[in-house]
């Protein structure tokens, strides 16, 4: 029978058991006023010192854990926070972090399942669920685009047979809302996830807990939107596309060939006069933005 004490660490198995218990204790959701939930294992794992009980010593780590990962989600999904409001966002974020603890060595990846989680979350009002999902999707796109590998540029020596791919630093979305509009006017996004060694946010119950600034609530009206999230000269930008532009880019993405894409493309001729000139202008713009790249040879 497995021992319930943690007095002896004589093997790797003992060490793992202790670490599992420690992690389990500190990862339980914080209670009101960010207090750690009481856990009998605290006394079994940690010794007191002159000023702190075992519970209080572990509480420092529990608060640190929750404040760090919550702050990470707050930063990465500030648009969603804007839409849902702080109270609702905190509830959803906590539920997400319980269900999906980090499985990556970098906090950058913490929110990779958050958009889908929002879509299925009963804590999100049904009237806001689609918008929240789309906003989170765009915010995740921002993160991916920011540090994606650069595409191989097309050059003067690229032949007509060169396979074309879209830049890895480009994401295309067909949305029911202009979900990016919550970010317009803000500083362009970048990953603020600069990890540091031993850095801590405020983590003391005697000190005011650091909470993200309350954002002005933002409402977004439904409007069919074709969105490109892309990186240009190190910064992330949004660009709304027409349906025809979006469809053509998607075809290039699927076929890796401009010729094939143009053959399959069905533009709305009623809206495009002088189609050849228009298409030429599209490609010139996309080329200058770095969206069209040569496929790298494996």
């Amino acid at each position, binding site marked *: 029978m497995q021992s319930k004490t*943690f*007095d002896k*660490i*004589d*093997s*790797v198995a*003992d*060490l*793992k058991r*202790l*670490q*599992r218990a*420690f*992690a389990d204790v*500190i*990862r339980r959701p914080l209670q009101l006023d960010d207090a750690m939930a009481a856990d009998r294992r605290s006394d*079994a*794992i*940690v*010794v007191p*010192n002159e*000023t*702190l009980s075992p519970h*209080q*010593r*572990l509480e*420092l*780590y529990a608060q*640190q*854990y929750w404040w*760090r990962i919550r702050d990470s989600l707050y930063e990465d999904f500030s648009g969603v926070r804007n839409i849902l409001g702080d109270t609702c966002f905190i509830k959803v974020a906590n539920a997400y972090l319980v269900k999906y*603890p*980090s*499985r*990556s*060595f*970098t*906090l*950058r990846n913490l929110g990779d399942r958050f958009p889908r989680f929002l879509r299925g979350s009963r804590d999100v009002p049904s009237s806001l669920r689609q918008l929240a999902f789309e906003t989170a999707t765009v915010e995740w796109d921002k993160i991916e*685009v*920011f*540090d*994606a590998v*650069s595409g191989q540029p097309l050059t003067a020596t690229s032949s007509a047979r060169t396979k074309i791919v879209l830049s*890895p*630093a480009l994401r295309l979305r067909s949305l029911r809302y202009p979900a990016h509009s919550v970010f317009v006017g803000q500083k362009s996004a*970048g*990953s*603020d996830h*600069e*990890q*540091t*060694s*031993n*850095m*801590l946010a405020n983590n*003391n119950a005697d*000190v005011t807990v650091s909470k993200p600034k309350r954002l002005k609530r933002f409402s977004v009206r439904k409007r069919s939107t074709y969105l490109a999230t892309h*990186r240009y000269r*190190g910064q992330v930008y949004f660009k709304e596309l027409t349906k025809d532009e979006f469809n053509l880019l998607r075809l290039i993405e699927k076929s890796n060939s401009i010729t094939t894409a143009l053959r399959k493309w069905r533009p709305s001729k009623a809206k495009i006069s002088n189609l050849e000139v228009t298409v030429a202008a599209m490609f010139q713009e996309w080329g200058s933005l770095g969206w069209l790249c040569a496929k790298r040879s494996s």
Partner: protein
Amino acid sequence: MPANRFNNFTDLGVGIGLRVPHYQHILSQKPTVDWFEIISENFLVDGGRPREVLDQILEQYQVVMHGVSLYFGSPEKPNREHLKRLKALVKLTKTPWIGDHLCWGSVDGTYTHDLLPLPYTSATAKAAADKIKFIQEYLEVPVVVENLSSYAEFKASTMTEWEFLNEVVEAADCGILLDVNNIFVSSQNHGFDPYHYINSVPHHRVAQMHIAGHSKFDRFVIDTHDSRPIDAVWKLYAHAIKCVGRTATLLEWDAKVPAFEEVKAEADKSRQWLDSVPDKAS
């Protein structure tokens, strides 16, 4: 000791952490800096701004890698993808050594993104040493192990932290990144003599030192890296330099980061002690 096998026989001087708020200043003003320490995890990405900045920094400066997620004290095997990316970064930066902490932070594939303390036992020391040896062999660059600041002590511990550190580095045959501020913070939280700690580590294995600020609360001290080191920490550092000899030193300032010149001026304070010791430990 300067120029030993644990720092790849380098004598780098005074370093500063490479931080986002300083990027623009560094790239435009090109200040004179002996070396920069980078947090490896911030650059284990495929491209974009972080890599662009790093490429420019590498053109002008010596860079040393410092990690926060190798988790030498987590018995699980290191993540292969993580190690591959680290090795690629080692080759890119030509770092003379790579540092990380004597801690754990992941269990059963989940991560806490924190540097958690270990129980000080021989079994723990052996597990950590085995992992360090594996990683050192894979990365093909000296690994140095940093002592942690901690806020909890384990019932299971059978030795002191400095005895534990000794056992790990001897078994792994690796270097030490002696964090003087961490020793001070832990000494306040656990009630030991920080000078005794420094006297007790194997000085010939010290490859690098860290110095930093912390925050004192009513009942504990937290390693916040958000201010300049206090006088007591500088005094401890001076003692460490006297024991160990002239050693590459880095100032960590990670939160409430002031202007670059202010950070550099604080880091340069260490020169008064670095320049006053002979090359060999007294």
